[in-house]
């Protein structure tokens, strides 16, 4: 969160950035600053890259949190030349970190694509992101005379960043998820093995290739090492992006970014597909292991606080209505189930005192879970259920015709 100006010398001649400011260590988006801060592109072969990623413990930063080395290793080395896709489509309205990264450190993402592509002997390199984010990337590519990476504009929809939707969009179809029985790493874009990595994951990959796993692990916790980007938003400030060491307590993150904990009623962790945590759960650490006991996940690194003057049920009802509207309208249980959840939840939030409502929300949430081609129904159900748990006493109040916050 603060930039430590001193540097420790690791491997070769260029030193890795010390402190937590890593991805943004160049300070400026131009190629000169980038090279000065990070040095030249390292050479990496497939086996060594996989090994270094394995040792570093880097996990995917797009939301699913799949180990980065594993995805790379599951690209078959069977002679078919694979495709590498950098995914910067941030459909999630609460997330801004990929946009921040592409605007402030496009060269690091480009490095990551090139290193992954070279090590796999890739045939094609692609980057998929919203129109506003493509501009700085295009500028950066031009600056370094790089022509192999093809840019694709992501539509402004919630599910456009889902991996199969990304591949579908690049192939010229709609950016909607597809049915999947095979892994993309085995059969993706035009049937080729396809590695889809989030842009932040690729930026970390570019740093690990240069400075090594030990350097990467010098911040963060043992089980989830390194730094990560988060987007913090909520009652005190609009969305802001920070680079933090993983495994810091949520309360520390909030306090160090100037949030008054007394003004916070709860926090939504992991985004719209995430989990509400009540105030007393906020001392959990922001990492896979730290959040597991409270039933949450880091997702794409999203934390949204709910002010003590806001009703969590109303906030959830509004998000559920949005999510229902963002269904790709392909799968029956999603098309029908999400609006049903949203409407029952809205009744609970906005004055209906029928005691069966919470039970009905739980029933519908269980009904849609696992029954879509992507995780949209599951994520929506998770949000609804977590709200019932985190705001349990307010649910009771609502059923008695009151609200703990309003009135």
């Amino acid at each position, binding site marked *: 969160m603060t930039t430590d100006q001193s540097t420790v010398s690791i491997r070769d001649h260029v030193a890795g950035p010390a402190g937590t400011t890593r991805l943004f260590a160049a300070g400026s988006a131009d190629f000169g600053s980038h090279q000065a801060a990070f040095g030249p592109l390292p050479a990496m072969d497939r086996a060594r890259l996989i090994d270094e990623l394995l040792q570093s413990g880097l996990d995917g930063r797009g939301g699913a949190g799949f180990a980065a080395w594993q995805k790379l290793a599951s690209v078959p080395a069977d002679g078919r030349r694979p495709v590498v896709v950098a995914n910067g489509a941030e459909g999630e309205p609460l997330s801004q970190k990929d946009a921040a990264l592409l605007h402030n450190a496009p060269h690091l993402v480009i490095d990551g694509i090139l290193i992954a592509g070279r090590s796999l002997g890739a045939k094609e390199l692609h980057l998929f992101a919203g129109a506003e984010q493509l501009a700085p990337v295009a500028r950066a590519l031009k600056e370094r005379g790089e022509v192999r990476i093809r840019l694709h504009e992501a539509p402004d929809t919630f599910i456009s960043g889902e991996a199969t939707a990304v591949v579908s969009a690049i192939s010229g179809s709609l950016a909607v*998820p*597809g*049915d999947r*029985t095979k892994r993309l790493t085995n059969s993706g874009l035009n049937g080729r093995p396809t590695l889809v990595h989030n842009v932040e994951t690729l930026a970390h990959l570019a740093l690990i290739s240069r400075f090594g796993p030990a350097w990467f692990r010098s911040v963060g916790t043992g089980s989830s090492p390194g730094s990560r980007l988060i987007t913090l938003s909520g009652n005190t400030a609009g969305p802001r992006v920070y680079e933090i060491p993983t495994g810091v307590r949520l309360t520390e993150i909030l306090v160090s970014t100037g949030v008054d904990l007394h003004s916070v009623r709860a926090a939504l962790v992991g985004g719209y597909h995430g989990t509400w945590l009540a105030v007393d759960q906020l001392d959990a650490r922001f990492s896979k292991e730290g959040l597991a006991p409270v039933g949450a996940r880091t997702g794409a690194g999203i934390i949204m606080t709910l002010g003590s003057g806001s009703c969590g049920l109303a906030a959830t009802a509004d998000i559920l209505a949005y999510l229902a509207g963002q269904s790709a309208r*392909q*799968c*029956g*249980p*999603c098309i*029908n*189930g999400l609006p*049903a959840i949203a409407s029952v939840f809205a009744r609970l939030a906005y004055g209906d005192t029928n005691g069966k409502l919470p039970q009905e929300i739980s029933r519908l949430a269980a*009904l849609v*879970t*696992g*029954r*879509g*081609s992507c995780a949209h129904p599951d994520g929506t159900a998770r949000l609804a259920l977590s709200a019932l748990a985190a705001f349990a006493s307010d649910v009771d109040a609502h059923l008695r015709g009151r609200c703990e916050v309003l009135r």
Partner: protein
Amino acid sequence: MTERKVTMHIDWTRCDGRGLCVELLPELLTRDDWGYPVGRGGSEIAIPQNLEYAAQDAAALCPTQALRLHK
């Protein structure tokens, strides 16, 4: 002999909730509020050996070709 596990995959982008599969596999499937098939496993329904033929019929007869069996 290693045990082979047959599962039936439901492609939700194709399924139109016509209910043929539920008729053929009443032991495993029911219909949800909107007519779509519900079974344990969500999109990957485990098929016990005695129901393999019924599952094959369901996959062959599904009018929208939403079902696939794999081992």
